[in-house]
């Protein structure tokens, strides 16, 4: 039986979307232009956490720290006040590598720890990272953040004019502007491209020897070890890959927002939000993770602000009372959603197909 390639279809739809006039006006009218790339970056971060948590089954509570490390590496390599001023691609690669390296350094001594203890180490690591980022503000900018981070240079083949087409470039052909701050679609395609590439990469890794080894370690570490799998090395690989992808997401975030944001942005609450999204969607299932991110980030970035401004328009809350503001109930909605999910659908909205439901 032939399966319908849903992933490919959705990706094609997302890529074609901004060229359809109806979609384009909808996006511009609702100011979604800068939100959608953030959503894609969030999805990359979610996939990064899914490697450790979903595939390898290790509870990781400090993913945001790696995201932050990526963002700050990217910034340090690119902003004008430092002598490096690397280009977009080498800096992004470096952000991922630095983050992966720190992931290896963190996880190599802690691999023999059991689930809950490992969770605490990652949590503590997150707190320490934030503290260091805040304390060494001469390097990281601290609260002042590092900015502006330059936008990537568009590649030659997009901008150079073609003589056979009235001297128009590929950008003109696609009717895209070349100003990153005005044309949201540039970041849209950049982040969507990365998301698709990482999704594809993870799909292949999951089906490789490494992915099967992760599954075995997750389901029963002892049995996996007896089968000759080097559990520690597999977990190390998961941590490194996850940290690397998170670092890459952080680098993209820094470039997209043009600043590093202050260090406290990358604290535990961000890690927990990503964790919730991954669990909500379905541990270990990539599609589920994307859906979870769509729900949680979509709620936070799109739905909640829209509802708040809508309520304000209705003049529903003239005295500005705390409990009548929708955004003051966000945590409650998150919390209840988690509780209901765990009660009635503990494997997530889209459960992983090979999950052991014993």
């Amino acid at each position: 039986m032939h399966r319908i390639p849903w992933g490919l279809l959705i990706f094609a739809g997302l890529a074609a979307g901004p060229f359809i006039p109806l979609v384009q006006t909808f996006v511009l009218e609702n100011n979604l232009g800068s939100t959608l790339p953030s959503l894609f970056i969030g999805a990359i971060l979610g996939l990064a956490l899914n490697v450790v948590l979903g595939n390898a089954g290790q509870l990781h509570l400090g993913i945001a720290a790696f995201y932050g490390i990526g963002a700050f590496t990217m910034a340090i390599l690119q902003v004008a006040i430092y002598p490096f001023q690397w280009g977009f691609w080498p800096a992004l690669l470096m952000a991922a590598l630095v983050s992966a390296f720190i992931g290896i350094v963190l996880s190599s001594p802690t691999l023999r720890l059991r689930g809950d203890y490992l969770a605490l180490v990652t949590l503590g690591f997150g707190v320490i990272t934030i503290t260091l980022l805040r304390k060494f503000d001469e390097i990281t900018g601290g609260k002042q953040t590092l900015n502006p981070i330059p936008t990537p240079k568009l590649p030659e083949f997009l901008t150079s004019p073609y003589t056979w087409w009235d001297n128009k470039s590929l950008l003109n052909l696609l009717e895209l502007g070349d100003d990153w701050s005005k044309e949201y679609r540039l970041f849209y395609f950049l982040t969507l491209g990365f998301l698709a590439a990482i999704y594809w990469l993870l799909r292949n890794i999951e089906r490789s020897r490494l992915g099967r080894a992760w599954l075995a370690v997750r389901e029963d570490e002892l049995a996996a070890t007896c089968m000759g799998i080097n559990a520690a090395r597999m977990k190390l690989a998961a941590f490194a890959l996850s940290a690397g992808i998170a670092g890459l997401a952080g680098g993209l975030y820094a470039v997209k927002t043009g600043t590093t944001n202050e260090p406290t942005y990358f604290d535990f609450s961000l890690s927990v939000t990503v964790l919730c999204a991954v669990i909500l969607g379905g541990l270990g299932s990539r599609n589920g993770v994307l859906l979870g991110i769509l729900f949680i980030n979509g709620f936070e970035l799109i739905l909640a602000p829209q509802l708040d401004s809508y309520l304000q328009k209705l003049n529903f809350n003239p005295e500005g009372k705390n409990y009548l503001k929708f955004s003051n109930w966000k945590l409650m909605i998150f919390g209840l959603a988690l509780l209901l999910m765990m009660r009635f659908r503990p494997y997530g909205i889209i459960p992983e197909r090979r999950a052991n439901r014993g």
Partner: protein
Amino acid sequence: MFPVLLASLDTSVLINICINGLVYGFLYALIALGYTMVYGIVELINFAHGDLFMLGTMLVWTFVGVVAVGVAPGSFLAILIILGMLIAVPIFCALLNAGVDVAIYRPLRTAPKLAPLVSAIGVSFVFMNIGQVWGGSQDVNIATLIPDNNLLGADSSINLSGTDVLIMAVTIPVMIMLTLFVKFTSLGRAMRATAQNPVAAQLMGIQVNRVISVTFLIGGSLAGVASVIYALKVHTVNFQMGFQNGLYAFTAVVLGGIGNIPGAVVGSLIVGMVYSLASGYADNLWATAMVFLIMIIILIFRPQGILGARVREKV
């Protein structure tokens, strides 16, 4: 940094820092006991425990705001109010904690291992939201009920306030009572049996669910005591403070060995001391990092904690 350190190597400063560390240590111990008992019995890191403590302080805030308007610090009435709160707030926290167990954790006893943990995070969010709506997004202030003057005389360089004495006078008996309860009563024995092996305990006729409820009741009431004391000592609370204090307490639990009651107390005293020393000689941010650094080091080199016994992984 070094000359500053030398200049402040003054014995009275050190003694003050140690007193402060001890006081915070006892405070964390009250929270930590709730964590460690629950972990010992149902193997759940109860992320909502710190937020339960926060809700307790919110109740203290409301209580003091309603009842203690214009009450002079240190007066007979103030002491009566404190005693009343030391009874009412723990009852509130205990019932809330046990209620959450029955409504949320109990149906998940057979669920996959992550489910209760994630639910605890969910409960923590709900509690935080309640706290946010209750007290608002800003810090709220709690009126002073115990005079802040120095018990050792105004000109003594060593500072010991009435609050500090009260904290030790409350927490030390509570901990002794708890230890005696777990060691010598039949319910305490049932708790230890359930912690060791719930199935075997059930086969021996122990009503496991009731034992778990009692554990949550005790843990919650200790958090309630901690919130009264915290409110009296620190005077400002906000809806986000539960998370950080909960983490310190949890670090203490890990230090002492998860599930180990004396370990939690020892761990808390260490955390309190480290925090106090680091914030005295450096600053608060470094203090937080130090606490977690020590936790990571302990976990790497002695994962069973200082007082914990090495447990072989069950096959």
